[in-house]
């Protein structure tokens, strides 16, 4: 339901940017899958960095978003390693940029949501709404890695995607715990 319960109560005109569901063709290759995940992690990292800056007075929330920034950076590292394992080469960012129409610069985050749009929406929102948007993103990331682990044939890459999906679930639980404290 658009805008969630706040919209139901007539309290908001617009909910957060709507996230989409990721899908790829059965023919998607390893390079495509890892490149996509890397691009989304980059976007999510930039989103969390931007949101952390909104909470200069709320140390706990700021700390949470900064922790997510480092977690996403760690995921990027794992993804680059996966890329090397699968292709036997270092990532060619120029080639990947061409493949993704230049959008490897963190313009889009999990759920296919444009980072700029999400930051614009979040800039005058409180802790609860920002945490809720972050949770929606983590659910999307969780879903994405589960799908990737099913789509990829390489056993080692599959295990890495499974691990990443488990970590996204941990992010989700941490965000939920903080939201519980802030309500």
């Amino acid at each position: 339901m658009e805008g969630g319960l706040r919209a139901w109560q007539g309290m908001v005109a617009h909910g957060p940017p709507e996230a989409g569901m990721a899908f790829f063709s059965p023919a998607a290759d390893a390079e495509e899958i890892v490149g996509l995940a890397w691009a989304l992690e980059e976007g999510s990292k930039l989103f969390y960095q931007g949101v952390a800056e909104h909470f200069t007075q709320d140390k706990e929330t700021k700390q949470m978003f900064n922790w997510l920034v480092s977690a996403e950076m760690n995921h990027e590292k794992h993804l680059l390693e996966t890329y090397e394992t699968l292709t036997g080469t270092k990532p060619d960012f120029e080639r990947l940029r061409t493949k993704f129409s230049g959008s490897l610069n963190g313009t889009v985050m999990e759920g296919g949501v444009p980072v700029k749009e999400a930051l614009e929406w979040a800039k005058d929102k409180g802790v609860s709404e920002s945490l809720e948007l972050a949770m929606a993103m983590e659910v999307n990331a969780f879903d994405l890695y589960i799908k990737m682990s099913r789509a990829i044939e390489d056993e080692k890459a599959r295990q890495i995607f499974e691990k990443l999906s488990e970590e996204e679930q941990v992010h989700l639980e941490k965000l939920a715990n903080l939201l519980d404290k802030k309500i």
Partner: protein
Amino acid sequence: MGVLDYFKSIPSMTTEEVRQFLAEKHPDEYNLVDVRQPKEYEMDHIPGANLIPMAELKDRLDEINPEKPTIVY
């Protein structure tokens, strides 16, 4: 191909559409799921909504009947 080509939108209903849907259907005909936190649910929720917080969704999928339409908020 751009990153956005890998995403398809999830069908979404406006609050008015949901009100109309709930008014026309019997509660047995749909799943109405509240994915917020328990404290938020306690404060207010749509009557008949089943609370399944987002972080628990993966482990409680069996509570959602796949044969029926599902409304999530």
